[in-house]
């Protein structure tokens, strides 16, 4: 159970490692049962990657982050930052470790009593950086997040997106190698969300900062993360690249969270509408995913892509795209297409069997009464 779902690449250095971590909070009130927030969580974050944690609210995402910067201590298991085990450090050691870990928050948590520059300077003051060096670094960070002209404003005069950019600058002040991002865009509008995500991507690529981002928003994880862990009521049910997990969730919990995202199947109303058309063929939904169909039979095709059209043609089945779409996910195509297949029933069956034999995910839409 404790073995990570996906063994880490031996060459990649592990930046954060959770080993069978559990966290239980005492129940509120004398008779309340203790609350298990995290249960036997193991995962590894590689240095330099963006690691997403997705889960519905209350799944334990924020607690997971707080364990990584030592603001919470696990009830069981161990948390490693590189080679260091946090539990082996005393409070002072953990405080020092926090200098190498930045954190940004959903509600920004800026100091209202300080100016923008004062907010960014705070972690530097804590770290004992002298005034001239502090000023230099604050100016550089504010230039990086595009807020140099607002240095002397107080946070209440900024928009939500600007506040979060100050939060990012503050989190990066001590030049940490790890950035923890807690639902950083959930309080922002879609456009601002895009800007903040782009900035976080820049932080990862240009500064080489490892990012662990937790969110309940699929868009956030999809656009930023390299790999993702799916958290469901305190357990990691799945870990893998965003492409793999989003295009082929292996567990029902993951499918429930992600399933509606990329595997869009027509709603019953749309199905009824499609069936009322002139075609009258059978409706099947095919998941389009790079790598599918590259099984044993791929050899016969000389390693070519499955070639849906080729299979349909070979079985003398006419296929019409009636629903679906393919988009880009981590630079690769992903999506689903619903076909209306016309031809002899036996021929359609044979074509579907051939696709399934190639490892293509095919679902026949149930015949309605329409």
């Amino acid at each position, binding site marked *: 159970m404790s073995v990570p779902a996906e063994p880490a690449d031996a060459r990649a250095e592990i930046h954060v490692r959770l080993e069978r971590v559990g966290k239980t909070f005492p129940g509120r009130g004398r008779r309340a049962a203790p609350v298990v927030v995290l249960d036997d969580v193991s995962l590894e974050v590689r240095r330099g990657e963006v690691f997403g944690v997705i889960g519905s609210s209350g799944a334990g995402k924020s607690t997971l982050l707080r364990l990584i910067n030592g603001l919470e201590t696990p009830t069981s298991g161990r948390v490693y930052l590189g080679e260091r085990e946090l539990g082996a450090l005393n409070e002072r050691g953990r*405080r020092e470790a926090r200098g190498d870990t930045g954190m940004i*928050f959903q509600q920004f948590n800026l100091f209202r009593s300080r100016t923008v520059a004062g907010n960014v300077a*705070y972690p530097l003051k*804590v770290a004992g950086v002298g005034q001239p060096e502090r000023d230099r670094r604050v100016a550089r960070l504010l230039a990086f997040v595009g807020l140099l002209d607002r240095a002397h404003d107080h946070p209440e005069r900024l928009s939500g997106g600007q506040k979060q950019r100050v939060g990012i600058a503050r989190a990066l002040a001590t030049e940490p190698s790890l950035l923890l991002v807690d639902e950083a865009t959930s309080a922002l509008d879609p456009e601002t969300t895009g800007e903040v995500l782009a900035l976080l991507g820049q932080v990862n690529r240009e500064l080489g900062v490892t990012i662990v981002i937790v969110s309940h928003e699929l868009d956030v994880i999809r656009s930023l993360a390299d790999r993702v862990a799916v958290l469901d009521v305190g357990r990691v049910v799945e870990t893998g690249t965003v492409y793999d997990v989003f295009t082929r969730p292996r567990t029902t919990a993951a499918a429930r969270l992600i399933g509606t995202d990329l595997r869009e199947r027509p709603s019953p109303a749309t199905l009824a509408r499609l069936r009322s058309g002139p075609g009258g063929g059978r409706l099947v939904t095919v998941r389009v995913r790079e790598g599918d169909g590259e099984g044993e039979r791929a050899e016969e095709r000389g390693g070519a892509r499955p070639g849906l059209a080729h299979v349909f043609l070979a079985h003398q089945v006419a296929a019409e795209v009636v629903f679906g779409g393919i988009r880009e996910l981590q630079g690769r195509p992903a999506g689903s297409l619903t076909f209306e297949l016309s031809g002899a029933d036996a021929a359609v069956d044979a074509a579907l069997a051939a696709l399934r034999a190639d490892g293509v995910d095919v679902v026949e839409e149930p015949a309605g009464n329409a």
Partner: protein
Amino acid sequence: MHEFLDNLAVYREAIRQTLFIVSISVVAGGALGLVLGLVLYATRAGNLFANRAAFLIVNVLVNVVRPIPFVIFLTAIQPLMLHTIGTTIGTNAVTFALSLSAAFAISRIVEQNLLTVEPGVVEAARAAGARPISILLTVLIPEALGPLILGYTFIFVAVVDMSAQAGLFGGGGLGDFAITYGSQRYNWPIVYISVATIVVLVQAGQFLGSWLARRALRR
């Protein structure tokens, strides 16, 4: 009116005594109250120095002492005064008692205002690696500064009010002047001049407090 002019020196002395009692009480009581308030806030469950026993003790102490009327409080702590400052009457004795009384009152105000600071702000400071004691002093107090100043202003007015009772224990002050030279001799001008002086004092304090709070809140 000539009685007032005859007693001008007494009046001046009364103002001096009131200012002495009030300023020492607000500063000393304010400092002690700040410490007590910080302890109340910090030892509360889930906070920086969460400690059930410490919170319980201080909380009960504050709850017991705070509602005691000042005149009775001053009488009740006479043994303590004898031990610490060696007297139970006079300006110093009254100032000592008033400082203590003000400290307990201000402790609740400090605690309440610190509790209004967003916990997320403390979280951000902790995530930056700050020590808890430094978070109390350099994050929590600045974040709550505006309301804290208004709270201290409120206590200043209450202290002026309580200082009028100093005469009962030989502490002098404007209250004593108004009673012994004023009402007891049916000399109403002296009563009203004393009242006016206290009103001016309170107004000046309130004005200063509001002005400082506005600056802290940037409104």
